[in-house]
């Protein structure tokens, strides 16, 4: 709420603006990596950190917020004593749980993705799913941009190899087509 008067109102307004601008990105990031029933709590955690540290949130907030989300998710996973790597396996669960119709996700691709190391997988996901530039994605992972580019290159190569192992001899990966227009 925009509140008249000095001091806290500006902070509140800034927080609100940040929330509204970035909620979708944070929600998507978290949703891709954990179970649906955990999503709201984890998003709250991310924005709680943002509220506490609003003064240090950079103008380009998304990489900063996703880095926080990554930490929050990591803590969540460790806290739950799951001892499992963060990433695609959970995304697969998510797909199974919330999409009752046949998933459009090519399972070969996710299976191949699951064979990659966590940071390699995260690099591919940040660029393709979160839509981050390599420079921004590097910030999320705490890499230098040059290091990240190398990581991305390597991750693509490994994914390609894994796909070739997973796929049938024709190399076709099924993607559900769209329905015809009724217009």
């Amino acid at each position: 709420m925009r509140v008249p008067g000095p001091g806290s109102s500006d902070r509140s307004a800034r927080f609100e603006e940040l929330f509204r601008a970035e909620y979708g990105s944070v929600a998507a990031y978290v949703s891709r990596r954990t179970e649906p029933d955990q999503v709201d709590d984890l998003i709250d955690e991310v924005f709680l950190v943002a509220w506490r540290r609003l003064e240090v949130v950079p103008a380009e907030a998304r990489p900063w917020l996703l880095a926080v989300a990554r930490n929050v998710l990591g803590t969540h996973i460790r806290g739950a004593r799951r001892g499992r790597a963060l990433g695609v396996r959970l995304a697969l669960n998510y797909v199974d749980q919330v999409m009752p119709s046949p998933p459009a996700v090519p399972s070969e691709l996710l299976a191949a993705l699951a064979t990659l190391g966590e940071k390699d997988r995260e690099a591919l996901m940040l660029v393709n799913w979160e839509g981050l530039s390599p420079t921004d994605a590097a910030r999320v992972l705490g890499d230098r941009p040059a290091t990240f580019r190398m990581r991305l290159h390597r991750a693509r190569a490994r994914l390609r190899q894994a796909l070739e192992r997973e796929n049938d001899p024709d190399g076709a990966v099924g993607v559900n087509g769209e329905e015809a227009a009724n217009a």
Partner: protein
Amino acid sequence: MLEDSALDELMRDADPVDRLWTTTEVDAALARTLHRLTEVDETPARLIPLTVHRSVSRWAFAGLSAGASVLAAVVVVGVLLLSSSTTAAFAGWTASPSRPTVSQLAAARAVCGEVRATALVAAEARGPYVAIAYTRDGRPWQCITHGSTRLWDTSTQYPPGEVIKPGAASIYLPSIHHAVVGAGVAAMKALNRDRAKLFREKAPISRIASVQKAIFALDTGRDSLTAVAGSAGRAVTGVTFLLRDGTRVKATVGRGWYLAWWPGAGSTSATEPIKILLTTAAGTKLAPDSAAYLRGYYEPCLVQTSYCVRSPAINPIVPGIAPSIIRDYSLFRTQSPVAVNQLPRKLRVWLPRQGVTQGTGARLGLDFSAARAVSFGRLGWILAVPGNQGLCTFYSSRNGGGSGVCNPLASRYIHGGTGQQNGRYLVLGIVPNGYNTVHVRFAEGATVIVPVKDNLYLATLANQPTGVTSKNAAGHVLR
């Protein structure tokens, strides 16, 4: 071997969360997060005092197998919506104001941000609610309170030089504010943004001409209110707003100001204002520009901005969107436009592939920047795209399938169609304001009832439908 670009394409196609979040969802999330912040006691006190009222059940898009129960649910919700604003959310509200007690006024001044007594220009009580108008930093502000809770406030900045002339027997209506109390953050945001745009326009002083509307959802069942304030000529001793349901809301008038508010908001609600009565020494009569004001109120709102202005001097209609679309389909007023780059990627890819953006789109003059997206939960999304010659609705399933239907403009019929999706039959479309359910008929005579949400309906069915009709409260049937 797969190229990098093809590999990335495969990755993007595999995105398990290819969706967007509507304004309504973000509002709800923000309210939830703020509540969480208050629980951990980290929010400044001034941010907190939004009372979160009991929220009325929102429509669930229930399964179609239980048609009768769906209808029953809809009827019940309708009653709740109508009654909630006056009976539950604002219990004790009175249509006639009284003078607040000293302690009530002191509490309101404190809650509204330590308002100095000398800054007060008007104050009133309606039952347990106290509203004040005051100036701060040279700008007028309005604030509505309940005990130690601030329900809503705003700043109303008047255009320079547009103060009403002393002695005039008319009032200046700079704005009508709609506020959703349970989502004050969103409401204030919308109001602030709109206000900046509104006052770039010149509203003629002699006419009651400008009406400001906020763009957040008004009809989702949250507690809402409408607030008015403005300057009144010295000859004016009384201002009364006559609402559609017959309620006469008397404003507080004095010192060149008037001030009033009432529960409920929305241009189709029972609490919309339909007449303004002015009292002077000569008696009470319809405000000179009441009709112009009301036309303004009903006039289609701008698409990108969100206020409605109607006067000979101001033409707010965006070229390219048929006014009747904005008037007849309130989702274009209550929902924010969705940025094209926020649409699910598969829908973005699908639209040009189907020639929608070129052929049909060009013929109908579609404006994708004015598109609204409405979620139907697990069933997917409908994207409604208005144009100057017609209207399209596109369906996007959660996993990327799509379908759509476009119609040229016609007066009040169902814009919709059917299609097939994963072996099930899809019915979707858009109906004008006032049509709350759609009846889907089948060859053997069976009918199922589909609820309408934000003018849109969507259902998947096992059998092929043969027709779709909808009836409004007046009994008019769309076919």
